[in-house]
C-alpha cells in the first residue's frame, strides 16, 4: 500500500489497523539468479536497483541477524560528498544526488535533511588541507566553501571559537548540501521497495559456506536455512566481508575494527548542522528526537566485538566538551559499536573477485552510510552486467596490485 494523503487519512479513520506488513518474509527458494549476502542499506539498495533497473527479480537478500541491524542501524547518519579525488567525489556525489530524490523514489520518508556539514580546521595544516579539498571539490562540481571562525559560529551558534582553546578554530569547510538522513528508514524503505518488486528478503539466515563448481565458479551457498543454488553471490557484509569471501578462498585487503558512537539525553533543538573535526577526533549532530549524536574513532586493533574501548569514547567527549561547552552537563544515554571493514587507502572495494560469480562491495570503513544509494546503484549494475559500472571501475580489488590507490585518509574524517 502506497503512502499517500488519501491512504494516511483512510487508515487514521480505521485506527491504523489496516496497514499491511512493509515487506514479505518468505521461505528461501532452492535457487536464485543472484544472492546478496547482507541486508543492510547497501545490500538492500543493491537488490532494489537490480530489480528496478536491470529486470532481475529472482534475487534473495540473506541476513544473518535482522534487517538493518548491523552498521546501518549503528552509524551516525551523516551525508556528504566532499571527498578529495575525482573518483571518490564522483561516486559520493552520485550518492548525494540520489539522496535528494530518495523519499519520492521509494515512497518512504528517509528524512533526508541537507542541514550542512561543517569540517573544522584547527591549525595551519588543517587550513591548507581544507582549502585544497574545497578547490578540488569545486572543480569536480561538488559544493564546498570556506568559512572564517566567525562565519562558522554564525552557522553553528553553540560552537566555541575562543582563541585560548587548546585547539582553536581557524576556519571551517562547509558543504551545505550535506546533512543527515534517518538510518533505519533507509533500510526499511529499500526493503519495502525491493520486496514489492519481488526480491526475497530472508532474515535469520547466516551463510556458512560457499560451494563452487568444477570450473571454480560459485554454485551455491550453504546457510542456516538450507542450501541455495546461485550463479552470482554479491557480498555486502561490511565488517564480516573477509569472513564470507574466505569461504570461497578469497583473501581481502581489509581489517575489521569496532567504531563507536554515543547519544546524549534528548534536548530541545540546539545544533542546526553537522560539525566534524578531523584533528581532535570528534563529530556531532542533533537527531530529530533531540539527542546529540556523537561519533568517536575506531579501536587500534582488529576486533569483531561490536564494542569499542571506553578510552576512545572518552577522548572524543573531551574534544566535544571543548568545542561545545554548552553540552558539558548532558548525560550520555547510550554508547555502542559496529564492526567496520577498513581498506589500506580508506576507499571502498566495489567489483569482481578472482572467483567467477563472486562480487564484493566492501571497505566502506568508517563512512559507508552516506554512500548507500550510490553504492547500491553502481553495485547493482556491476553484479547484473558482470562488469564494473563506470563510477565503480576505479574501485577494483586489483588496485592494490597495480598501485592505483585512491587515498582518502584525510577525507574519511574519523580517526583510525
Amino acid at each position: 500500500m502506497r503512502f499517500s494523503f488519501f491512504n494516511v487519512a483512510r487508515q487514521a479513520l480505521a485506527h491504523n489497523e489496516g496497514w499491511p506488513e512493509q515487506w514479505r518474509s518468505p521461505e528461501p527458494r532452492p535457487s536464485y539468479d543472484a544472492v546478496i549476502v547482507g541486508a543492510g542499506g547497501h545490500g538492500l539498495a543493491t537488490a532494489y536497483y537490480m530489480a528496478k533497473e536491470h529486470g532481475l527479480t529472482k534475487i534473495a537478500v540473506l541476513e544473518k541477524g535482522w534487517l538493518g541491524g548491523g552498521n546501518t542501524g549503528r552509524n551516525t547518519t551523516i551525508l556528504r560528498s566532499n571527498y578529495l579525488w575525482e573518483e571518490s567525489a564522483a561516486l559520493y556525489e552520485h550518492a548525494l544526488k540520489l539522496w535528494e530524490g530518495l523519499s519520492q523514489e521509494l515512497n518512504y520518508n528517509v528524512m533526508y535533511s541537507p542541514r550542512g556539514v561543517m569540517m573544522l580546521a584547527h591549525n595551519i595544516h588543517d587550513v591548507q588541507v581544507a582549502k585544497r579539498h574545497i578547490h578540488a571539490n569545486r572543480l569536480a562540481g561538488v559544493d564546498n566553501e570556506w568559512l572564517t571562525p566567525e562565519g562558522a559560529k554564525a552557522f553553528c551558534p553553540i560552537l566555541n571559537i575562543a582563541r585560548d582553546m587548546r585547539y582553536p578554530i581557524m576556519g571551517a569547510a562547509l558543504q551545505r548540501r550535506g546533512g543527515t538522513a534517518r538510518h533505519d528508514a533507509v533500510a526499511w524503505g529499500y526493503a519495502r521497495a525491493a520486496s514489492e518488486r519481488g526480491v526475497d528478503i530472508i532474515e535469520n539466515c547466516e551463510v556458512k559456506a560457499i560451494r563452487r563448481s568444477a570450473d571454480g565458479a560459485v554454485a551455491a551457498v550453504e546457510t542456516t536455512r538450507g542450501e541455495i543454488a546461485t550463479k552470482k553471490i554479491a557480498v555486502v557484509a561490511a565488517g564480516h566481508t573477509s569472513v564470507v569471501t574466505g569461504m570461497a578462498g578469497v583473501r581481502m585487503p581489509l581489517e575489521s575494527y569496532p567504531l563507536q558512537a554515543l547519544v546524549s539525553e534528548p534536548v530541545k533543538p540546539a545544533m542546526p548542522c553537522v560539525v566534524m573535526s578531523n584533528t581532535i577526533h570528534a563529530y556531532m549532530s542533533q537527531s530529530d528526537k533531540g539527542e546529540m549524536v556523537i561519533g568517536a574513532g575506531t579501536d587500534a586493533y582488529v576486533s569483531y566485538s561490536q564494542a569499542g574501548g571506553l578510552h576512545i569514547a572518552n577522548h572524543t567527549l573531551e574534544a566535544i566538551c571543548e568545542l561545545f561547552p554548552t553540552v558539558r552537563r548532558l548525560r550520555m544515554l547510550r554508547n555502542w559499536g559496529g564492526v567496520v571493514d577498513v581498506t589500506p587507502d580508506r576507499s571502498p572495494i566495489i567489483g569482481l573477485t578472482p572467483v567467477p560469480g563472486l562480487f564484493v562491495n566492501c571497505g566502506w570503513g568508517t563512512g559507508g552510510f552516506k554512500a548507500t544509494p550510490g553504492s547500491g546503484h553502481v553495485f547493482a549494475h556491476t553484479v547484473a552486467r558482470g562488469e564494473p559500472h563506470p563510477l565503480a571501475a576505479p574501485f577494483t580489488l586489483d588496485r592494490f596490485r597495480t598501485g592505483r590507490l585512491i587515498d582518502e585518509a584525510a577525507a574519511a574524517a574519523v580517526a583510525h
Partner: protein
Amino acid sequence: MLLIPCPYCGMERPEIEFRNGGEAHIARPADPAATSDAEWAEYLFFRQNPKGVIAERWRHVSGCGRFFNSLRDTVSDRILAVYKAGEPRPDVPPEVSLRA
C-alpha cells in the same frame, strides 16, 4: 580497555600503554627484485582479519618500549597468550581458546 600482560615487564598493564602493530609473522619478501606485484600486494595490504584467534604485534611504548606478540580472540577480545618477538607462535591450549 584491554589489560595486556607484557612478557618483558612480567605484569598486566592497561592498553593505553601499548601501541598495536597489526598482524604478526608477516615477513618482508627476501628478494625484492624477484617479487611480483601480486606478492608485494599480498605483503603490504592483504591480511587474515580472522574472526577468531589473531596473532598480533604490540609495543610497550609507555613501559619497556619493546616489541612482543600476542594471541587474542577477536570476538571476546580475550588475550590467550603473549610471547616475545622472535619466538614462534605458541599452540593455544583448546580449553582457553574460545573458538579453536
